[in-house]
């Protein structure tokens, strides 16, 4: 895992967009990400995040914002647009649904975790977020091939996961359909937007409780 991080740092950096209404938390997450060799942009709200991405509803078209965003980390409880609402907007946008979204929340509520994962969140981190959490998220991102123009490995990994998990009917193409899949008998309902890693992550989160 360390090796992957070192290789990444020397070639390119993940650009992370961090969204949190708390100034203190923005400062901390920025430091955590910089220490993990990421480029960081912090914004204070979901609306600002969408503006930065170029998904500005007022403008209606994609704006140019320079650096491509490889990962979004957002707080759940924010005034105005919650992290959950931001997640939904991103996952329902054809331009940005591929960007992994991580939710951070001080409240470890199972139904909340489930809804976020079902809407396509990669991970749900309980605050306060630690360096080990950030490093794990980074490694997952790298493993998923969320680096500039590298989507091949992600498809392969999904195929591998499909063999081992009785999860949703994910296709082998990289585009994710946004319609919900029918619930499976053995596992809790999984939307087609979730990756096969979700059932594993959900189990991990439950154990953590």
């Amino acid at each position: 895992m360390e090796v992957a991080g070192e290789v990444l740092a020397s070639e390119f950096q993940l650009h992370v967009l961090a969204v949190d209404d708390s100034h203190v938390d923005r400062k901390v997450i920025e430091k955590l990400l910089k220490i993990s060799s990421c480029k960081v942009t912090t914004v204070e709200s979901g609306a600002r995040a969408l503006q930065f991405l170029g998904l500005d509803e007022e403008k209606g078209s994609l704006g140019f914002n320079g650096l491509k965003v490889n990962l979004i980390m957002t707080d759940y409880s924010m005034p105005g647009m919650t992290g959950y609402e931001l997640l939904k907007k991103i996952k329902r946008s054809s331009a940005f649904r591929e960007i992994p979204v991580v939710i951070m929340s001080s409240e470890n509520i199972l139904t909340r975790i489930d809804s976020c994962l079902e809407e396509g969140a990669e991970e749900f981190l309980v605050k306060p977020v630690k360096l080990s959490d950030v490093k794990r998220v980074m490694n997952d991102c790298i493993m998923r091939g969320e680096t500039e123009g590298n989507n091949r490995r992600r498809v392969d990994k999904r195929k591998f996961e499909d063999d081992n998990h009785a999860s949703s009917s994910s296709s082998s193409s990289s585009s994710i359909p946004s319609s919900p899949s029918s619930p499976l008998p053995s596992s809790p309902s999984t939307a087609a937007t979730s990756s096969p890693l979700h059932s594993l992550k959900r189990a991990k989160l439950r154990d953590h409780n």
Partner: protein
Amino acid sequence: MERNPMRRQLAIMRQSLFDQGHVDEQFVQLEELQDDANPNFVEEVVTLYYRDSARIILNIEQALERKPFDFRKLDAYMHQFKGSSSSIGAKKVKAESTLFREYCKSGNGEGCMRSFQQLKKEYATLRKKLGAYFQLARQAGPVETASRPK
């Protein structure tokens, strides 16, 4: 001026912050983010915390002057305050915030007021202690590694 006695005193002060339950593991997490480029990172975060949370404290105070209490609003403010307190590792302040929120949920106005008084005390005590600690840290000069509490 010799650094060693200062560093020793600094270590003692730091240990007592943990022993007396003022700060928790999150404080250590912040310390581990300090480096040569950002030797005063923890102090910066704490300063930011006291600046930002002053506003929330004021909001809660004003809300507690309006009867009947708007418990939903009080809880929302305290949720915010608790979040920041948790982010800097303010253990006692965080615990008091949790208590306050429980009083909000059960609609216990008296409990809220008592708990808020206690919270403000802890908040002020922590500020004094951390203030003294950071002042000494600046005088003692940069420390190479953060040591974990035993």
